């Protein structure tokens, strides 16, 4: 069955349950396609052999009560997977083979999912184009030499290219939603505390959150149901009542109030983004939602705040890479020399830049001026959202200020790269759920996404609005498999 890879997760599950497709057939078809898609550079490490074996085991003793019965799934290489190399896109973890499993991936295997392999990403999830990966950039299947977004760029590209029926990414400042927007796919960053951070290579712990990336909203709700769980192993995991997101998914959003924040209308925003947003507003109205103008006055301070908080936490988290306990080690004349050379050769340029910024803002004499200041502004940004949610149920914005750009176009100027996350970063700072859904294309036919931001723990409303709008938008990715001869 050559068409297996193009099925949605929901369709694939249905076919497997009805015994029309076996788990092994599904695994074979995704692996075959991956073998012919090496040009995209989506995989860092494959688990193909093991996946075939496990899928056969599933077929011999199937359990169709599971939520992901025998479904092959590739995941971002930021999730630790027992006995399967986990690199975080970095040279410093080039040879790291975890002896433990991340909670999020464990939840997937517990529900019958089978690991296809580990997908490329920006080094330590620091980047918006997948160009900072030690393992090379990823091609966006939409068009040659286009970035797939980042940091979950391997995930978004693999999904859009039909190399995996669904995938997971992580999102610290937009790393799920921006690549979803760049590849015409769906990406959800859940509320901070929904999905356990245990076993995810840490970047900025007060912002990091794992989430589903999918071909449509229904698939997204199925995977969220699997990966969202309370976990004692993550001290910031939150014990709240989680919905049966896929069961409770409805396209009835009549009477919901959706806010349009005027501060997201930024200077220099391309016309087509503004038009897309207007179109989105019309769709939301057609779906029965009430549109309300709102203000999030501190929006323009979100990126500067993020570029203090995230590097500060990163510099602290990445202090563990010292060439002693795991990972790459360079030789040195003495212990300090060994540390310094290991870290200099093990980390790439963007990661070093962020460690340096983080070390600087946390260093003696500067802490109050930068880190404490940023934490205070973060409070103001969060309060903006709290105030807005007194008036509305959700907020609608563009996902990104532009469509996907060319490989190499922005890699020389860090600040212009950072501006990519201008609409997504506030959501991480406030810990809110946000989804990006494909909503149209630009003049080059590159996908553009709309973002729906919800109240804390209200993923259901976010999904419902997305589901309802998706139906109206009726977006179809037009990918011609240019990379397959």
């Amino acid at each position: 069955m050559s068409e297996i890879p193009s099925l949605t997760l929901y369709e694939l599950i249905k076919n497997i349950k009805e015994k029309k497709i076996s788990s092994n057939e599904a695994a074979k078809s995704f692996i075959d396609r991956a073998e012919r898609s090496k040009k995209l550079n989506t995989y860092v490490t494959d688990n193909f052999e093991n996946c075939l074996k496990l899928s056969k085991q599933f077929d011999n003793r199937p359990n169709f009560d599971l939520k992901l019965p025998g479904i092959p799934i590739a995941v971002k290489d930021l999730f630790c997977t027992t006995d399967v190399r986990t690199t975080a896109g970095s040279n410093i973890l080039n040879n790291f083979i975890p002896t433990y499993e991340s909670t999020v991936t464990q939840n997937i295997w517990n529900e019958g999912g089978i690991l296809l392999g580990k997908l490329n990403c920006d080094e330590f999830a620091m980047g918006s184009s997948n160009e900072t990966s030690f393992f090379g950039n990823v091609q966006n299947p939409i068009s040659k030499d286009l970035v797939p977004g980042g940091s979950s760029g391997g995930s978004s590209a693999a999904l859009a290219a039909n190399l995996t029926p669904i995938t997971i990414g992580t999102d610290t400042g937009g790393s799920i939603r921006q690549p979803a927007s760049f590849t015409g796919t769906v990406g959800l960053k859940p509320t901070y505390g929904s999905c356990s951070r245990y076993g995810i290579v840490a970047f900025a712990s007060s912002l990091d959150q794992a989430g589903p990336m999918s071909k449509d909203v229904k698939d997204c709700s199925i995977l969220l149901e699997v990966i969202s769980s309370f976990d004692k192993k993550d001290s910031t995991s939150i014990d709240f009542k989680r919905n049966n997101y896929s069961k409770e998914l409805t396209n009835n959003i009549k009477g919901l109030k959706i806010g349009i924040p005027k501060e997201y209308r930024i200077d220099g925003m391309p016309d087509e983004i503004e038009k897309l947003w207007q179109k989105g507003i019309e769709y939301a109205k057609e779906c029965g939602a009430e549109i309300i103008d709102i203000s999030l006055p501190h929006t323009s301070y979100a990126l500067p705040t993020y570029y203090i908080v995230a590097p500060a936490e990163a510099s602290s988290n990445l202090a563990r890479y010292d060439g002693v306990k795991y990972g790459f080690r360079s030789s040195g004349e003495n212990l300090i020399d060994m540390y310094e050379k290991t870290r200099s050769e093990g980390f790439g340029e963007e990661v070093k830049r962020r460690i340096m910024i983080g070390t600087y803002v946390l260093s003696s004499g500067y802490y109050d001026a930068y880190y404490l200041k940023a934490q205070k502004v973060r409070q103001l940004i969060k309060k903006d959202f709290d105030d807005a949610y007194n008036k509305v149920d959700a907020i609608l914005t563009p996902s990104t200020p532009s469509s996907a750009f060319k490989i190499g176009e922005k890699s020389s100027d860090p600040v212009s790269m950072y501006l990519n996350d201008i609409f997504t970063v506030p959501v991480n700072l406030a810990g809110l759920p946000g989804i990006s859904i494909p909503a149209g294309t630009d003049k080059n036919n590159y996908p553009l996404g709309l973002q729906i931001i919800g109240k804390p723990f209200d993923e259901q409303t976010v999904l419902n609005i997305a589901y309802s709008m998706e139906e109206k938008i009726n977006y179809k990715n037009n990918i011609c498999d240019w990379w397959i001869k």
Partner: protein
Amino acid sequence: MVVCDNIFYHMTIDLKTVKHISKLARISLEEKKAEKLATDMNSIFEFIEKLNELNTDNVEPLTSIAETTLRFRDDKITSENIREKILKNSPEKNDDFFVVPKVVE
């Protein structure tokens, strides 16, 4: 918006500072790379200094977005005999220990 006059140290990051920070971060830096890094850091900090526009004198810093206090757990051993697992990925080890360059003469 009130402009705050007491907060930012609006200063450029010079080569000496970059080298000092690289020492603190335990990352060795070639001279040429240090210069590039100084340029990059200055452009990033120029962008960050926008926060200076805001008066935050009476604002509580937000330290955790999850409005819960950290949970305590019982001080009990939950995993046993994981020495091998812990040492497995070490670049250099002997039977029971991580090995590092000599630190005591």
